[in-house]
């Protein structure tokens, strides 16, 4: 095992021991910032880039690695970009509108993740977490969902 890898693993252990970098909520910018300055970020300039590190399908710290080379994901290095917010959102919305259909993934009561095809019905700009009246529901799903805290 290389010295660099050993050091990196030591840093990981130390970091875990101090509990400074837990899994983070995507809604917590403070925790996000803390995570992005984690000492076990890669030492490459790309990996020290906040935006670069952000791009993954989970906001938790990457824990699986099978190599100790830097910049081991050249596809991401070559293709990742961070334009103005308007362009980022605009291109996303344009793509979503063009697709019209998506796979909606949810978690079942037994813990499995399932998905099904859904057609986009519309978009809203202002999402308000107001509890809406559900007087015509035969069940209490809406009330329970509104009361859910995660």
């Amino acid at each position, binding site marked *: 095992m290389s010295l660099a890898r050993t050091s990196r693993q030591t840093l990981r252990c130390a970091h875990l021991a101090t509990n400074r970098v837990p899994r983070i909520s*995507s*809604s917590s*910018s403070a925790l*996000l910032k803390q995570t992005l300055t984690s000492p076990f970020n890669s030492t490459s300039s790309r990996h020290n880039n906040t*935006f670069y590190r*952000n*791009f993954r*399908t989970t906001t938790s710290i990457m824990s699986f690695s099978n190599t100790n080379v830097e910049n081991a994901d*050249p596809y*991401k290095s*070559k*293709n*990742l*970009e*961070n*334009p103005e*917010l308007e362009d*980022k*959102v605009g*291109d*996303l*919305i344009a*793509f*979503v509108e063009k*697709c*019209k*259909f*998506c*796979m*909606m*993934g*949810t*978690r*079942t*009561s037994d813990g499995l993740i*399932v998905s*099904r095809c*859904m*057609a*986009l*019905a*519309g*978009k*809203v*700009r*202002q*999402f308000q*977490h107001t509890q*809406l*009246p559900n007087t*015509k*529901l*035969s*069940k209490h*799903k*809406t009330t*329970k*969902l509104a009361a*859910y805290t*995660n």
Partner: protein
Amino acid sequence: MPRQEGNGIDLIFHANTESGKTDDLQNDPDINLGFLNNAGEWASISGKADIVTDRDLVHKYYSPALKAWIGDLGDGKHDGGPEDPRVCLIRVNAKTAQYAVSKRTSVGGFVEFAKGVATGETPSVNKLRYLDDKELQQWRSQAK
């Protein structure tokens, strides 16, 4: 055609309150929306969902095509119309989004890909982008 409002990032879907998806979301509002086309472009939006049964909003987004999916039970109430209590909306409050769309034409992308196969040089063919919660909040706050 789906009703669209503004230039929003929070998406709306129709659903039947008696379907499995509303059961799932009752237990866990975490949701992911995966968009994909046959060119390999994709988008993944993660967030929290809520089930909306407010009749004004249901009316707002209602589509007559829903009758075919919801069905008319023939009791004068559950008719698949906007007043059918089974008709609801799933509203997704996006928390993060990531996507990759092509930055080149299909021909240009193929050329770059072929060069990559030949040389081992990873091609730059996509706009690979990430939006975090903070950016999405900022976008919402800019909405007029």
